[in-house]
């Protein structure tokens, strides 16, 4: 082949360029092996079923790719024009053409059968006594997770017990979002006016990351989520803790923060907008419990979360301080405005919020 290529100067540089592009592509793939949203490293049965289908299709596609592109390159080398040679004129070969219709059709039929079987498998509603129900409400730009069996609400961070089927009910309230945890299951859109469902399970403990995958506005990129799969006992403990009211501080900066949370600076407002309680709930805090119509995350156990603001920022004091200074600067398009808080007010609110374990 090398000798042959040597005789064919025209194709030489081209093939080398193609080869170079291929090497770069492979090297690129090899360099980035640690990707927390890698769908080809499935961590649950649903993602595994989906990945298996991808593998099947991929290898068939690779075979077709090699054959077709190989034949094209071969034809380019073999049938290049030479002085004095004219091509024989032929118009087709009906038998060969029929074969080339039937073979791809059969290959596709071979893919279609497991495809349709899997469509129905992954769409099935899980049954059993250990099913965990979670209602997902997608907002611009954060996730609300309600656990109806336990009666609490949390945001952006989801805890599930390992080995148990989890059944999500997806509800939209503003625009279309898409709920996706690549290593556990394919995505499902969250469409206002429609109720969609998604089932998955995680056999092994771990942190699985996901994010919104339907363009939903300014901060689409900042609408992420985390799934913590824990052994059933740990999950049970977490759920019981989440179901309890927050412990409200009685004195110091944190107590001033609690007061600001409910009453604002004056008249229930801050210079740049209403007090926190107009949008957020904290169960256990007087006049701040869960009510219908709230548009911000439930903050009852805010400090127990690793992240905030669409799971985009680590839940640290300095990040929270920056956030309270100017939320839209950290998350463009955020519904939470710059409230015009003073330094002192921010210190008090941070002290209060970081105490909500």
């Amino acid at each position: 082949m090398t000798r042959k290529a040597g005789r064919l100067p025209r194709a030489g540089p081209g093939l080398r360029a193609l080869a170079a592009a291929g090497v770069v592509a492979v090297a690129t793939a090899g360099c980035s092996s640690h990707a927390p949203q890698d769908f080809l490293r499935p961590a649950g049965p649903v993602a595994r079923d989906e990945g298996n289908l991808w593998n099947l299709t991929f290898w068939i596609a690779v075979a077709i790719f090699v054959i077709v592109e190989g034949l094209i390159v071969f034809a380019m080398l073999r049938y290049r024009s030479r002085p004095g040679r004219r091509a024989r004129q032929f118009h087709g070969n009906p038998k060969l053409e029929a074969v080339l219709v039937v073979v791809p059709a059969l290959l596709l039929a071979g893919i279609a059968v497991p495809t349709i079987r899997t469509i129905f498998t992954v769409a099935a509603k899980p049954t059993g006594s250990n099913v965990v129900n979670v209602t997902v409400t997608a907002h611009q730009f954060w996730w609300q997770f309600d656990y109806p069996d336990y009666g609490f609400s949390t945001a952006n961070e989801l805890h599930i017990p390992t080995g148990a089927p989890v059944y999500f009910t997806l509800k939209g309230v503003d625009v279309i979002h898409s709920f996706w945890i690549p290593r556990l299951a394919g995505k499902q859109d969250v469409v206002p006016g429609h109720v969609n469902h998604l089932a998955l399970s995680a056999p092994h403990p771990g942190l699985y990351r996901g994010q919104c995958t339907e363009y939903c506005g300014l901060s689409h990129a900042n609408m992420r989520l985390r799934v913590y799969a824990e052994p059933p006992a740990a999950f049970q403990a977490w759920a019981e803790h989440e179901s309890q009211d927050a412990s409200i501080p009685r004195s110091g900066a944190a107590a001033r923060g609690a007061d600001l949370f409910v009453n604002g600076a004056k008249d229930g407002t801050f210079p740049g907008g209403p007090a926190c309680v107009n949008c957020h709930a904290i169960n256990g805090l007087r006049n701040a419990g869960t009510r219908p119509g709230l548009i911000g995350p439930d903050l009852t156990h805010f400090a127990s979360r690793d992240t905030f603001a669409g799971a985009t920022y680590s839940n640290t004091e300095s990040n929270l301080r920056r956030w309270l200074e100017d939320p839209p600067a950290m998350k463009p398009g955020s519904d939470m405005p710059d409230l015009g808080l003073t330094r002192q007010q921010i210190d008090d609110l941070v002290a209060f919020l970081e105490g909500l374990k």
Partner: protein
Amino acid sequence: MVSTTLPVRKPRYLRRTAKTGLWSWVVTVDHKRIGMLYGATAFLFFLVGGIEAELIRLQLARPNGHVVSADAYNTLFTMHGLTMIFLVVMPMGVALMNYIVPLQIGARDVAFPRLNAFSYWVFLFGGLFLYSSFLLGGAPNGGWFGYAPLSTGDFLPGDGMTFYSLGLQMLGIASLAGAVNFIVTIINMRAPGMTFMRMPLFTWMSLVTSFLLLFAMPVIAVALFEMMFDRVFGADFFNVAAGGDPLLWQHLFWLFGHPEVYIMILPAMGIVSDVIPTFSGKPLFGYPAIVFAGIAIGFMGWGVWAHHMFAAGLGPVANSAFTLSTMMIAVPTGVKIFNWLGTMWGGSLRFKTPMLFAIGFVMMFVVGGLSGVTHAVVPSDYEQTDTYYVVAHFHYVLFGGSIFGLFAGLYYWWPKFFGHMLNETIGKLHFWVMLIGFNLTFAPMHILGLQGMPRRIYTYPGNMGWNIPNFVETIGALIIAASILVFIANVVLSRRREARAELDPWDARTLEWLTPNPPPEHNFDEIPLVRHRDELWHRKYAPTPEGVPTRIIAGGERTAADAPAHEAHGIHLPSGSYMPVMAAIGLPVTAYGLLFFPPLIGLGLLIILTGFFGWVLEPQTVEEGY
């Protein structure tokens, strides 16, 4: 046409007859000039859309990029998509159709020359209207498929999506006018003997594309009207609180949107189907199969729209049905690829620049087609959809496919347009640089998508494993930009340095090469009589008993250039007209009225009506107007 013995009476209708100068281009109804206008405009938009793409890539080159803001980024990807689809790939296809189809079927013009001009002006004004939004309160920023309710409610900054609904409506009118024109032209104006099964493939695919446009554009028109009513008049088509349904938009949009995909690829397939036989020295392998595959794609393209909505929650039964229909459409697509390969097989291949682009088209399209099959597999698509894997897929189809195919057409027909060749060496450089840049940009996107990077995110953290592919892609995008500069250099340098093109520079097979380069206004002095598929080839070559063709020494190749000059007399062509451009101007005036100042609506409609009345009443040529 302008006789020296005109009476000195004042004409009742003003029609231009000058053949040079700016006004001659404004009022022209010559399909070749309109084709050039389409092509030049589309190329300028191509540069703009390319700059938008480069900005997108610069923003994503590194994690936590700060090249542009979130809002600017959303505007950039929306306008990049709209520009490349509606202002580049579609009109560039139309440009070639305009110039080439009448020549390929042996006609003197299109059926409705003024409608043709109207189509161009509406396209131009629609494009400019869309871009004027940058100066008038914000460009479209809801994604090119403008999903409701994000685009219809009050969820995005600015008026951009109103510009979207009105601008696309105009572009749709342009496409509809063009589609009607080409359907009538191809069906009615073929030269004697040019039966359907003797038509060149580019003409065939133009016909199929025109039918797709004819049926697809009304669907998007309905959707856009509903969006406009929601945005401008506070209607509630997509407002859930008032009983509207966001999925209605998705169904309407993709019922248009999927045929639209074939609208963009079929003309390129037609070009490649003409270029490969020419440079293989062989007739197209399996002509009937490739024609019927094109028609089959045209029909089946209507039954696959919901594969864009697999994750929207249509349920397992609907998803299964659309997975099957989507897989089925891969079969006729495969037929085309095998037949192009069959055409090269046993040929005598000359690797001129158009042939390189055509082969590049086939090789890249195979990749896009195969990744398309993985999207048809619904459970796998749940993971891939709305990630960079999709971005990779459709760029392999629309860039590796359509754009490579259109460049094949540009290099192939350049001597026809301008009378001189494009430089071969620079052309080949262009091809290789573009091929490398293209693959560096879009191949790693497959990997990124599988690693979970969603599309349309303006930023990403550095710990997701996405850094290296993103950086490589940005390098690739800059290489693509360099390849476009090479093309522009080729255009500029070749204009000065390349010799005049011979009559039939590529040893081609179809009728457009029977005329001089560039053709006279009336195309053919004498309408050719067609006796064969590949008519020109048969006028040049006769088969020997072994099936190898030999050149006919003389006499077979009677062309317009050989014909006695006096034959051009007495060919009546319509004179230039102000009415198409006038009627077209009324549309953006109406649209601005809807956006800013309602009285302008009345003025715009008045202009349109005046234009149409003048159009109906004015005589065909300037002489009849006296």
